[in-house]
C-alpha cells in the first residue's frame, strides 16, 4: 500500500503538489519511487526557468529506467532541491519530504483545480496508474 498524504494533490503521472504561501512544491509520489527502483540521477531545470502544466520539466533516472517528470502547474521555478545532485536516493527514502524537487510560482490559479485529490489518485493507481 503506498503512502498518499491527505494534504497534497496529485497528477496522473505520479507527481505530488503542495501549496505553500502561494507557491507550489513538487515531487514524485511513493508509488512512483517504488516503481522506479533506486533513483540515481535527477535532472531538474534551473531557478528562473518556465514550466508548463502537463509538460516535462525534467527526468528521473533509476538503475533500470528513465522517466520524464511532468509539471503539475504552469509558472516559474523559484527553488530547486540542490541536495538531489549528491543524494538522489532521497527521492526513494523520503519522496514527500527531503526528496522534493522544485518549487513553482504558479501563473494560473486554475491549474490547482485540475489536479487529482488523494482519493482520485488512489483510484488511479488501483486502475494501473497509466
Amino acid at each position: 500500500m503506498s503512502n498518499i498524504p491527505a494534504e497534497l494533490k496529485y497528477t496522473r503521472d505520479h507527481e505530488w503538489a503542495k501549496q505553500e504561501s502561494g507557491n507550489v512544491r513538487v515531487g514524485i509520489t511513493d508509488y512512483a519511487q517504488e516503481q522506479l527502483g533506486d533513483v540515481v540521477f535527477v535532472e531538474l531545470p534551473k531557478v528562473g526557468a518556465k514550466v508548463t502544466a502537463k509538460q516535462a520539466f525534467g527526468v528521473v533516472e533509476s538503475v533500470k529506467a528513465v522517466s520524464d517528470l511532468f509539471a503539475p502547474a504552469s509558472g516559474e521555478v523559484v527553488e530547486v532541491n540542490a541536495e538531489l545532485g549528491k543524494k538522489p536516493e532521497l527521492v526513494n527514502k523520503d519522496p514527500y519530504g527531503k526528496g522534493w524537487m522544485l518549487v513553482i510560482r504558479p501563473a494560473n490559479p486554475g491549474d490547482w483545480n485540475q489536479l487529482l485529490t488523494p482519493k482520485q489518485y488512489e483510484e488511479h493507481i488501483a486502475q494501473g496508474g497509466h
Partner: protein
Amino acid sequence: MDEPLKRTPLYAFHVKAGARMVPFGGWEMPVQYTSIIEEHRAVRSSVGLFDVSHMGEFELEGPEALAALQHLTTNDAAALAVDQVQYSLLCTPDGGIVDDLTLSRLGPERFMMTVNAANIDKDWGWVTQRSARFRGARWRNVSADTGLIAVQGPRAEALVSRLAHGDVTTLGYYRFTAATVAGVRAVVSRTGYTGEDGFELYVAAADTTRLWEALLAAGAGDAARPVGLGARDTLRLEMRYALYGNDIDETTNPLEAGLGWVVKPAKGDFIGREAIERVRADGPRRRLVGLEMVDRAIARHGYPVVAAGKAVGVVTSGSYGPSVDRSIAMAYADAGFAAVGTELGVEVRGQARPARVVKTPFHPPRVKRAA
C-alpha cells in the same frame, strides 16, 4: 508474445519473496527483491545468491570430443586439465561472436559447456551441426535437467564450506569439484560473474529449491540474501565483463571486444580463425572501452559516443555502479579515440554529456587466484 516465458525451479520462491519478475531471454526472472543497489552492496560486503538456472548446459563426450571443441571454440581446450574450467567463445566464419561460454573438463573425453540462457537453442543448433563430422563426439543438452545457483561474495567460501561434504576451501579459481552440499549432489565450480570470490553450484533441477533454501538458512548469520538480475548486471559491469547481446554479438569480433586473451590461433584451426587473424593483422578498427561519466546521467545501450560533435562510437552497456559511486559504461570507440584518458561525449537525450575513457575493471576484482 508467441510462447509463454520459461520458469526456473525457483520461480515460486522468487514470487513468494516479492521479487519483481521480468522477461529475460525467454525466461521470467527476478530483477530485484528489495533494491538493486542494496543487493549489489550485499554481494560485495558479504554474500548473495543468484538463481542462474536459466543458463544452458551441454555435455559432450567421446574420443573426438576434444577435436570437436577445438574446431568450434576459440580457446585451447587441450590445455584444460580435468576439473578445470576455461572461458571461451563460439565464433562465426567471419569472426563474429555466436556466444561466450565456460567450458569445464569433466574427464579425458568428457566436457560441459555452459551457455547464455537467451542463446540455448541457437547454440545447440550451432554446436551439433558444426561438429556433425566428428562422429566420435556425442552431445547431450542437459539444460532443462540442470539447476544453477551462484553464491558470490567474501563470505561465500565460509557459507558453502559450512554445508559441503568435500573440501571447497582449497578449490582454486576456475576449478571445480564434485561435492555434496546440504545433502545435494553438486558440481561446485569456483567461477562467477561478479568479480568477488564465490562458486557456481550445478545441481539436478529437482534439487535446486532444497539447496537454495539451505544456503539462505545457513547464510542468515552473514545476512545472505537472494540477488536479482539487476544487481547481477551492475556487478558484472563494474568488472567490465561482457554481456552477450549488449557488448558482444555476431557483429563484434573478439579482438575489438578485448577478448583476444581467449583466442589461441596457435592451437590449430577453428571456425572464425582466419577472419580474426585478418583483424589482428590490420588492427581492430574500434575497441570496447570503459567510460566514466563526469556527472551522474546514465549512459545506456545505444547512446552515441561523440568527439568534437562527430560520432565515434556507441555505448553497449551502462549504469550506475554502486561500488564506485559513478555512472559507468562500456562502449565501442573508434581506434584513435580509445586510449585511457580520452575525453569524449555521450549523447543523453540529445545532449552531449562529458565522459572519459578509464582503465577497467572499474572496481578491483577479488576472485581467489591460484595458490
